[in-house]
């Protein structure tokens, strides 16, 4: 479903260019759950951003199903994120001025694919039923991340990308959140690529990859 070949990305820094990705190859099947670890600055987040079309690669290819992501225009990449990708960030990135219910429905409405039954199921599975009228600032970190996961899965994407989704949570909450995510990914059958620092959490997924010196080992 996701096929990455010889992907490279360089950032210009003050002293000298930083080669973050130096020919990354990666394959991910539909329904497969993959953890990506690596030291800080190894390019994990950059790889996720390139897959999501948030940034442009310098070379190589990213193929999501039948679409070559690197060839898409800004509007095409926006459409890809809207319809086929779910994104979860460490900082939750909820919209502070919208209620939990509106945040959950946010991406589905943008995509024009709001499914009321699926939304109800998500609310129930994520345990957000009593929090729907609250605003993000009134929630704990774990609750906020559950809303973010719900928002990302509301469109039933082909691929869920998560960048350190448990980075701000304590160990127990992190395990709870990840367990929920695994269940929902299984339920939707989408691919799941998670960047994490936790080897323990990485071990709970189907496959564990490490990014080192700009390459996957």
């Amino acid at each position: 479903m996701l096929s990455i070949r010889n992907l490279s990305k360089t950032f210009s820094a003050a002293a000298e260019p930083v080669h973050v990705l130096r020919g990354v190859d990666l394959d991910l099947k539909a329904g497969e759950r993959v953890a990506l670890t690596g030291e800080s600055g190894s390019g994990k987040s950059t790889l996720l951003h390139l897959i999501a079309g948030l940034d442009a690669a310098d070379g190589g290819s990213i193929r999501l199903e039948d679409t070559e992501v690197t060839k898409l225009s800004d509007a095409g990449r926006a459409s890809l994120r809207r319809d086929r990708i779910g994104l979860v960030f460490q900082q939750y990135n909820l919209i502070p001025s919208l209620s939990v219910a509106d945040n959950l429905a946010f991406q589905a409405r943008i995509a024009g694919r709001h499914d009321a039954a699926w939304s109800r199921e998500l609310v129930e599975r994520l345990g957000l039923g009593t929090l729907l009228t609250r605003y993000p600032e009134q929630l704990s970190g774990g609750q906020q991340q559950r809303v973010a996961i719900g928002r990302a899965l509301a469109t039933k994407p082909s691929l869920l990308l998560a960048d350190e989704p448990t980075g701000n949570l304590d160990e127990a909450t992190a395990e709870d959140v990840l367990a929920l995510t695994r269940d929902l990914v299984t339920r939707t059958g989408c691919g799941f690529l998670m960047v994490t620092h936790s080897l323990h959490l990485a071990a709970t997924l189907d496959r564990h990859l490490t990014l080192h010196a700009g390459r996957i080992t």
Partner: protein
Amino acid sequence: MKRALWVLAVLLSHWRRHRMQFATLLIGLIAATALWSGVQAINQQARNAYDRAAATFGGARTAMLVAPDAATFSQDLFVKLRRAGWPVSPVLEGRVQINGRSVRLLGIEPVTLPVDVGNAPRLGASDLSSFVAPPGRTLVAKETLSDLQEQEGAAPPISSGAKLPPLHVQPQLVPGVLVVDIGVAQKLLNKPDQVSRLLIGKPKGKPAPLASVVGDRLQRIEPNAETELERLTDSFHLNLTAFGLLSFFVGLFIVNSAVGLAFEQRLPMLRTLRACGASARLVNTVLVIELVALALVAGLIGLVCGYFIAAALLPDVAASLRGLYGAQIPGQLTLRPEWWLAGIGISVAGALVAAATSLIKAIRMPVLATAQPYAWQQRQRRWLILQSIAACMVFAVALLLLRYGESLIAGFGVLAALMLGAALILPAFLDIILRVGQRAARGPLALWFWADSRQQLSGLSLALMALLLALAVNVGVSTMVETFSRTFVGWLNGRLAADVYISASDNAQAVAIRNWLKERSEVQAILSGGRAETQVQGQPVELFGLPDHALYRERWPLLETATRAWTRLVPGNAAFISEQLSRRLNVRVGDVVEVPAPGGTWELDIVGIYADYGNPKGQLAVNVAALIRQFPQTPQTRIGLIVPRDKISGLIAALQKQFALDDRSVADQATVKAESIRIFNRTFAVTSALNAFTLGVAGIALLTSLLTLANSRLPQLAPLWAVGITRPRLAAIELTKTLSVALFTSLLAVPLGLLVAWCLIAIVNVKAFGWRLPFHVFPLQLVELVAVALVASLLAAALPVARLARMQPADLVKVFANER
């Protein structure tokens, strides 16, 4: 479409959570639109009135033929010209007194009246017969009918006893004018077969040359695109526009501040929208739509406010224009659809300009840009140096305009450049002051006080610039008005030499009054005056006849004089010239002015220059006997009397009883003086009102900036609270900081304001009115204005400070929480 609406709903949700910021944005837009539109409404109203005046059956917008000496001429010339193919139409003009009020009377010949006399009222076929056939009609504006306290259909008598044809209201007719058939006018004005001018219509063929028909007895006056009244009032309207613009920009400062902060706070939201698949184009388009929608709503509210402001100011503006220029402006506001459209347009354009930097940033923003709330304020610091360089360049432009500018626009240009430069350089000035304070500080809290004030400066600088401008304008205009007021009162004391003033209805009554007065023992002197009108070098000039009396030599104020000036005036070949006319004609003491008179050119040696404040017309003061010799038709109806103070009221009562004179026709010096001062004060009432409005808007700008900043202050204040400084003490420190920067700004506004006053007195007034006043400084007034500015700042700071003092510890603790 649905997607766009959803994105719009998301963007709008920000305002629901930040209501004060939303209010700030709306207030800024409303304030900007309201005063600007209000001033435009007033200007439009006045210009409509000038148009009506110019088009009144052949005003300055119609080509015409007049006698070279501006006197009336025989209507035989009209007949000759018509026969020679000239499409001319006769007009006779004069003044009549009705119920003690002097009104302009126009006699027209409706059949030959050119059809292209601007927007003059049209006379339909049925109206035409009623107008011409006895008893005829007197066309009158609704406002004049009400001024005369008459009803439509009434036929009021004029002072000679003759009756006007029945009054008939004619829409579009300028106030203060009565229009009758020319035959009726010739009878009423006692000028049989006389004509004042001939209006020229569009010729069908090529008429015979003018000189071959009438010789040099008539000269052609080409129509003016701009009337004399428009030229004279330009400065006044420019002044109003300048006030409107100032408030508009202060309003935009508020909008810029609110939009800038809102944009930074919404950066994470924009990033999330983009990450969730809303394209950059969609988000940017919706951002613009949101702004335009808000501008439309605020613009509409601003227009309604502008309407009320204009309606409130219009009576004062009308009084000012009447007092300064004799212009008649209807006191009731009528607005055209263009005004509404322009108001909405200016609101939208202003909002887009104020938000331009934020919108451009949004358009260029990469989707992975990290949100840096409040970094926007910090980035402003980088502009400090650029702003200072720009200020120096603007000051250089001011100097160039001062050195080489000749026009009134250049005068206002100097003012605008001066204020813009000062506003631009203010943050750098304040930064230097605060840096000095920081270096001198010893204790940790004092050090923090100065350092934090500097950090806050960038967020407050726009509001402080607004305060500086508003205050400088207040200082400048107040100093100018006060200077003018004192000069005017002193001048009036010298100018009003006589103790009693009489205005007879005609020469016959004036003779009877003089004869009666000669028998009165309490009358020490009878001073007869007179006025005639002529043109010198194409300029309308009033000839003012002065009696030869010691009192005038002692009291009449002269700015410049030749030796034995008063003695040289008596034979009739010398004149004093008013200051404004001397500037317009570039005439000094010792020069000669040639005045066209019925008997030929009258050469006058200029032996003195005098101030003639408030008179839009240029004036030459000559000996009254000489004036009557040169202009035999001069009405000799004005009489001044020297009477012991205790006999004044008795004499006035006796005069009123003997000659049936009303209060307008006879008045003592104190009454005339009080009336002049009342008119003077009313003239500047509108300036005071606009001053107050501008200061109010600047106060709002400061309040909104402080409220906006208050939200970002917690991370700075919480650590101090954590180390043991109480919330009330923190609030007191915040208040002191605000008042300190406001005080520094106010103190800088004082010299700037005095410079503005100097510009107004020495440049703008001279170019606009032709007179220059002595420059005075009024320290008490300056202290008052600084106090007002501090009170405004105190009020603006009170709300955010009160909030801080009452803030719950839980809110401060959040600053240190991880999950904030």
